């Protein structure tokens, strides 16, 4: 056993008796505090900085008491607040889906991008951008822009259902088949997306680029409301799959032996991922690495117990995405970087480092 490399992977805050529940509780509380701070910062930071004191006053509502609405208040209320809420939701959804998929596949490198859920959602969205509103819906007056979120969601869901149908025989889901089928589906979806990109016009190409890099720009309360309906149930569901996912980490047959309803756990987990990822991709495009980086950092601190890992992932995922978004907003102000570039620049090297460091441990 390569003892040197193994030592380096010891959890940072391992308690003497091997029980990390108390540490986990403390970490959760700390993350909750950090999350609130980052939310406030996200309201204050931007091309036009607004002092924290003013942000707080606007939040409490005393500012608008007497006169006309100030510019700062407009910025905070209509631009930054929905963007913050959306960023928090998307970050929480991506990190929790990543952790869920990793437990489901018993593979710490699994990611929503890997099993084709993101690619499926993206394909549906790109189809809408390039081909426009389908003739059946023309009379409803719906715009391309409005059709994007539901299309991406349906794409993500269809991919997941297809994946599940391929990998399930006689009521049993083969994880290996599911993983491989996911890779194949992702490749197919990317190829079809490529064809669409090839036939797109210049303006569409701009939209597509923006979209495929991922961005929180253009957040509105309307979009927030649309994804909250998907993401909130998904995050709540995590409470009910956490124990089952823990059991699945022992392998499917042993999960059954210790009293886990394996099939039910898998269905709920897949549904959770489809809801969360579909909704996220719909409003913010493909934002990579959050689903892999966040669960990994947290496992080092609190361990792989999903009862604590999933809520911690939601908080840290939100913190990470909001921080990345702040960087995206200020680094080239008044223009802004797509957030996907920021997460890729931060997450790519991290992922590589993880792979290199893990090499010794994977087969132990």
């Amino acid at each position: 056993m390569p003892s040197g490399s193994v030592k380096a992977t010891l959890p940072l805050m391992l308690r003497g008796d091997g029980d990390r529940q108390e540490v986990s509780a403390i970490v959760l509380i700390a993350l909750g505090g950090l999350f609130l701070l980052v939310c406030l910062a996200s309201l204050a930071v931007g091309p036009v900085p607004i002092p924290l004191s003013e942000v707080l006053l606007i939040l409490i509502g005393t500012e608008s008491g007497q006169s006309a609405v100030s510019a700062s208040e407009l910025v905070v209320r209509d631009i930054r607040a929905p963007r913050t809420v959306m960023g928090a939701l998307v970050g929480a959804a991506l990190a929790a889906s990543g952790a869920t998929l990793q437990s489901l596949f018993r593979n710490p490198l699994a990611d929503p991008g890997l099993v084709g859920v993101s690619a499926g959602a993206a394909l549906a969205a790109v189809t809408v951008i390039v081909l426009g509103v389908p003739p059946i819906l023309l009379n409803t007056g719906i715009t391309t822009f409005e059709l994007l979120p539901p299309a991406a969601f349906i794409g993500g869901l269809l991919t997941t259902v297809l994946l599940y149908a391929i990998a399930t025989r006689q009521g049993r889901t083969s994880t290996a088949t599911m993983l491989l089928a996911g890779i194949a589906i992702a490749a197919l979806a990317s190829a079809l997306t490529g064809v669409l990109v090839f036939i797109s016009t210049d303006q569409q190409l701009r939209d597509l680029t923006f979209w495929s890099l991922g961005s929180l720009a253009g957040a509105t309360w309307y979009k927030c409301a649309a994804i909250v309906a998907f993401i909130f149930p998904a995050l709540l569901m995590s409470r009910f799959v956490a124990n089952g996912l823990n059991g699945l980490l022992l392998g499917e047959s042993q999960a059954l032996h210790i009293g886990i309803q394996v099939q039910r756990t898998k269905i709920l987990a897949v549904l959770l991922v489809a809801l969360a990822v579909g909704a996220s991709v719909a409003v913010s495009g493909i934002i990579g690495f959050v689903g892999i980086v966040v669960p990994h950092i947290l496992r080092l601190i609190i361990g792989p117990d999903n009862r604590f890992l999933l809520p911690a992932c939601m908080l840290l995922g939100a913190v990470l995405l909001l921080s990345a978004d702040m960087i995206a907003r200020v680094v080239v102000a008044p223009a802004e970087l797509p957030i996907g570039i920021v997460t890729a620049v931060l997450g790519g090297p991290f992922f590589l480092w993880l792979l290199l460091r893990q090499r010794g441990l994977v087969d132990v």
Partner: protein
Amino acid sequence: MFELKSTSLNYGDTTALWPYSRQFKPGRITVLVGANGAGKTTIMSLLTGERTPSTGAVFFQNRNLNTWKVHEIAQRRAVLPQRTHLSFPFTVYEVVGLGLMASTRPPYERKRLIGEMLARVGLADHRSRLYQQLSGGEQQRVQLARVLCQLEASDEPPKDRYLLLDEPVTSLDIRHQISTMEIARSYASQGLGVIAVLHDLNLAAHYADEVIVMREGRVLTDCPPAYAFDPDIIEEAFGVRPEIVDRGDGLMPFISVLGPASPDMPGTHGTSGQARN
């Protein structure tokens, strides 16, 4: 009580187990032996509910196994697999705690149980180590502690609890092979049912109350070890020629292998015989 009623299992055209009926009574250690692919693990997977029989049925406490809820059965029988790989950095303590998934015990009792079971398998001072860092044998003992936790947390009477061991000692050194089998024996003497797959015939001879010798999906013999380990039966089951040394001190005979089976033995129709010709 576990019971197979004309149970068989086919994988496509291959028959892993021909129709077989048997009761597995509590309070005894029943050991399954046989060559690779003889059907031992097939019987195990039928008893655990992992596989559904092709014909017949598996009964537990006179109820068809598939009518039991997963968590109900988990409170009554625990299964130790051949090996368990974990991809995530659980501590030893946390792995053992997974055995309490179906339990309703309060936290302080869980903590006590986990500590006690780790002590029982001799790993009390390893509780905060990472499972992935342990040797194969230590990992197997951690899994044993997890399985014991699952059994100990049950409120059912001993006779309604079963310990299923699938090659429990394969990765263990001799000392821990013995201590694992001693643990199994102590549970059997408390009245629990123990069903184990073993490769070591001497361990089987020493610890089994009943031995089921299997070959190619069929049961060759099913009786106490003193009768089961007849040279002809071993030769037929495994395709090797054994020498059985009776030490004359009332202990179980010692079985050693002299070489491949003689050509005229029925056992040589099997895989090993064909390979030799």
